[in-house]
């Protein structure tokens, strides 16, 4: 609490990437990831080129490489899954260091690791160069239903409030000598979760009444209309188009 409400993922800077309208960036990242997923996995060099493209974007956006690499750690659970692949997949077998591994499984593991990592890196770049509010505005500009955008914005706005509420409940429990040790303590924790739900829901009711009393009728007023010029779209399209070129080359060669 008291740490301000800028989300920790956003990294403020002024760069060409930060300056692009949010909906251009979201569309570009989505198309890029789609192109990456559609690339044949045998074209190993293509994934290297994709990584170079993302590295170039990182450099242009003045985001420290270490930051991106650290946030890549979120995909560790999938790495574990990918490492299982060579053992369970069927087909031709090959001996590596005395282990019998499936060739198909090795390709599968590579496929998931490469595409998953590139996808995570692209999302991380998007989140660290775009403000939360701008992201939501961008999603709305991309014709996501406005009700969904509103729900998402309420979730983001009150996420910290509800999390803090939960933290205060934990402190209250602990200051009364409670430590959760095993399944026997689940009743207490579940009561906290129930209380948290009731508090969140009632807060929602109060927020709604406060909004209605200020003239809310189901739609949020648009204060700043974000528009993108043709030049901005063109600049945002550089990344997916370059990736598309790589992908097509990969299909032609493979």
């Amino acid at each position, binding site marked *: 609490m008291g740490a301000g409400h800028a989300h920790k993922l956003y990294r403020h800077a002024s760069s060409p990437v930060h300056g692009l309208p949010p909906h251009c960036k979201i569309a570009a990242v989505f198309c890029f990831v789609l192109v990456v997923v559609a690339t044949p996995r045998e074209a190993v060099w293509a994934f290297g080129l994709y990584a170079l493209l993302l590295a170039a974007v990182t450099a242009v956006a003045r985001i420290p490489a270490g930051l991106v690499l650290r946030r890549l750690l979120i995909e560790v659970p999938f790495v574990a899954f990918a490492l299982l692949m060579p053992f369970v997949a069927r087909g031709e077998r090959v001996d590596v260091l005395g282990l019998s591994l499936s060739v198909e499984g090795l390709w599968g593991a590579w496929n998931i690791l490469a595409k998953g990592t590139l996808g995570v890196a692209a999302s991380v770049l998007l989140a660290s160069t775009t403000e939360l509010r701008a992201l939501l505005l961008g999603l709305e500009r991309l014709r996501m239903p406005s009700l969904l955008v509103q729900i998402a914005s309420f979730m983001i706005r009150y996420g910290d409030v509800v999390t803090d509420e939960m933290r205060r409940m934990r402190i209250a429990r602990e200051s009364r000598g409670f430590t959760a040790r095993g*399944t026997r303590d689940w009743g207490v924790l579940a009561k906290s979760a129930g209380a948290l739900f009731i508090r969140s829901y009632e807060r929602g009711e109060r927020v709604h009444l406060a909004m209605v009393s200020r003239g809310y009728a189901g739609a949020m007023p648009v204060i700043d209309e974000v528009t993108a010029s043709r030049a901005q779209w063109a600049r945002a399209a550089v990344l997916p188009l370059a990736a598309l070129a790589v992908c097509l080359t990969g299909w032609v060669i493979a």
Partner: protein
Amino acid sequence: MHVPDGFIDAPVSLATGAVAAAAVAVSLRGARREHGGTSHASSYGGERTAPLAGLVAAFVFAAQMLNFPVAAGTSGHLLGGALAAILVGPATGVLCISVVLLMQGVLFADGGLTALGVNISDMAVVTTVVSYALFRLLVKALPRRRPSVTVAAFVAALVSVPAAACAFTLIYALGGTTDVPIGKVFTAMVGVHVLIGLGEAAITALTVGAVMAVRPDLVHGARGLARPLELRNADGTVLQPQVSTAAPRSNRRIMTVGLVAALALAGFVSYYASTSPDGLEKVAHDKGIDSKEREHAVKDSPLADYQVKDVDDERISGGLAGVIGVGATLAAGTGVFVVVRRRRDRAETAASDRIEAV
């Protein structure tokens, strides 16, 4: 588990994306109805949806961070699909979980952007719909007491998690990028998720119980369980209550639940039913001599593998056939029902006209 990019191939990702978008669109309408409380919800009360669903999404997001210790340093956490469905209704539940998944994907890179459709379809839609359908069925079937709500919540959450695992296996069978035997994926996924489901079930049941104890009116799935109001004269005789106008609504709800249950049975149970060894062997015999299969089989790998693969396809097609069958039956039945009801309505209006004329 959030599916990353590259796990499912591009065409199936796009297809599940379309499924997820359709489900979210349906839920957007449904959520307005759940919060509006009237059939004219789009004009009245529908505007409550955004703040309430937003706060519930924030709650789900926070509750996923609440650690439940299991033993020896391991701990689990809530997934929240079943809980959201029971507490705020299936449509709002789908919206909340979808928004949580969307934000996790876009902000925290947890779950791939192209896999968003897969994630929403199996974690938001399947979990919520299966758990809510089961919960309502059980609540209707069990005696009207508070413990039955807890029991229903337990079973609903317990089934919903492996159901999501089944849905994932189905998606993987259609568009998985690695040729892992579907049988193995299925056993591993369902095995692990039955365990996770047990934890989820315990937490969900306890949490629903806690909310029921304080604000039973907030538990959407348990609405209508309260005893209806009884009017008594001064001498204690019970007055006959007015015929409630809400009957058609609850009818429709029961029908929805029945439909979902029928589809689930047709899709999933036929899927399970034919996994019994007998059916497996039989179909393997029938299909093993297929010329196309033999052509594959001579390639490099034991024949058995391809037979199993073929059977897998059979099972899925069995499930799909069941779903299509239910759909066709339902369409025919609905047609008959609509015709009959329209005729009855016409007769009734004619009768009332006559009365007015008198």
